């Protein structure tokens, strides 16, 4: 698994590749995420999805899919605007992503179209209001959440 093969996928999906100490990052647009993830997962050797991470960057949310192929992480990264936080789900090609996407939906409020766990709550309690900001977003305040959940 090398930078060249990731760059080849980058060419096919219109993404750019950056490297760091332990990871090769492929930046793609959100529509291309399922295709890029399917291609990374199909690369020779063993594919393993470690997890999916979401970062609140202010106006945007970065979603990173961490694949481990032995020696380096292959990360597929995309940015979505906070006001329209939706990404097509990669579960048809990578079934392991089901729970990770559900967790990101609960904690960061990003909706994954096509994931069967998008209704109801996954890790949060059911009484967490649907109109409250997702807890890991910058605008969410733990003290307010505690009051909402009546935890004082």
């Amino acid at each position, binding site marked *: 698994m090398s930078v060249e093969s990731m760059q080849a996928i980058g060419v096919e999906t219109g993404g750019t590749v950056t490297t760091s100490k332990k990871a090769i990052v492929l930046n793609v647009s959100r529509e291309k995420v399922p295709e890029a993830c399917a291609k990374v997962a199909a690369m020779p050797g*063993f594919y393993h999805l470690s997890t999916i991470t979401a970062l609140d960057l202010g106006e945007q949310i970065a979603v990173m899919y961490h694949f481990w192929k032995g020696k380096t992480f292959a990360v597929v990264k995309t940015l979505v605007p906070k006001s329209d936080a939706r990404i097509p789900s990669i579960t048809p090609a990578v*079934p392991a992503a089901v729970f990770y996407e559900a967790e990101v939906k609960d904690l960061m409020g990003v909706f994954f179209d096509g994931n069967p766990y998008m209704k109801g709550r996954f890790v949060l309690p059911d009484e967490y209001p649907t109109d409250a900001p997702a*807890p890991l977003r910058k605008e969410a305040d733990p003290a307010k959440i505690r009051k909402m959940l009546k935890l004082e």
Partner: protein
Amino acid sequence: MSDNTEGPHYTESSAGLMEYSAESAMPFGPVHPSLKEPEYFKLILEGERIVQVMPRIGYVHRGIERAAQDRTWVKNVYLVERICGICSFSHSLAYTQGVENLTPFEIPKRGKYLRTVVHELERIHSHLLWLGLIGHWAGFDTLFMWIWKDREHSLDLLEAITGNRVNKSYSTIGGVRKDLPDGMAEKLKTEAGFIEKRLDYYEGLMSSEETFTIRTRGMGRINQEVTRRLSTVGPLLRCTGISRDIRVEDPYAAYDEVIPEVMTSNDGDIASLVTIRLDEARDSCRMIKEAVDKMPSGDFKVNIPRAIPAGESMFHVEAPRGELFYYVKSAGGSTPERVKIRTSTMANILTGVEMLKGHTLADVPVVLTGMDPCFGCMDRVAVLEVDKGKEWSIGGEALRRYGIDYYSKRRGNK
């Protein structure tokens, strides 16, 4: 009912992904007293067999990732190790190494070796805990008591080295907190030898005791197709024949010099998980002895300034249950911007669900414990008998006794 030497097989008809409809998004049933906590499972039975399982997690969700953003780098070590009481050192190790990767500092060799020793001691204590628990759930309480008595040896060692049995806070950003006490090196070797001998004895016991083997052989069978599809981690992955271990693939601490042996099996059932974990615990004893012999002298820690440079770092370790993944992002300040944690049990829940399909209610305790949820996670189980239209619930201990009675009646009828 097939003869148990064959065991129920993984059914190809299951799609693998559950339908999670809006109705089942509510808490299952009226209020249920929950025993040992999280992961509430709803089992859907047809006749005697489980056809579908719907887990509901979140019972231990406390909001640690968010709290980690409000604490300094060092204070987070104390927060993060309390995510799980069994693999607490693995959490602090992954976190501290993730943070150290953001800095240009290199940890001294002695610190790495000391981390390896405590990491392996934790693996021994965790596997012994699991071996005792699987005995307990299968009705073999004597085994449970004996193994936990021997487990105390590893906990005494941990207490002597780090100061605490459970939440050790031994790894710090820059190395370890303190050095080995005098005479500890010899004691480590003696105790590791003692535990190795006891493990040999338990291996003989667990493979020959029939009341135990009929409940573990052929149970919870999975294969490589399942583990590849669901990105399983840990012994559950290795029991299907895939030889992957983070300590070997991506060596951290002193694992490039004290090399673990990766234990695999091709059977994919609970009995093979028993063998794998037992072998891993024995290998840990071997590694502790080797690490003590090879340990270099010198510093055990390096001083790292409190403000960590900006950047992002991904780090994973092989916790006793599998790959534990940490993503740490720094904005250059005294607190992290983001800490993302993916525990090994989260990666294995769907695999556990696959293991359950096709089994009867009596096998549920053993099969679920086989996936090694972070301690007795399955305690509250709801059962839905589709063809009879009945829904009822049963607690963990009652389910355990049901399983024991079920199998003792079967043996009586043979």
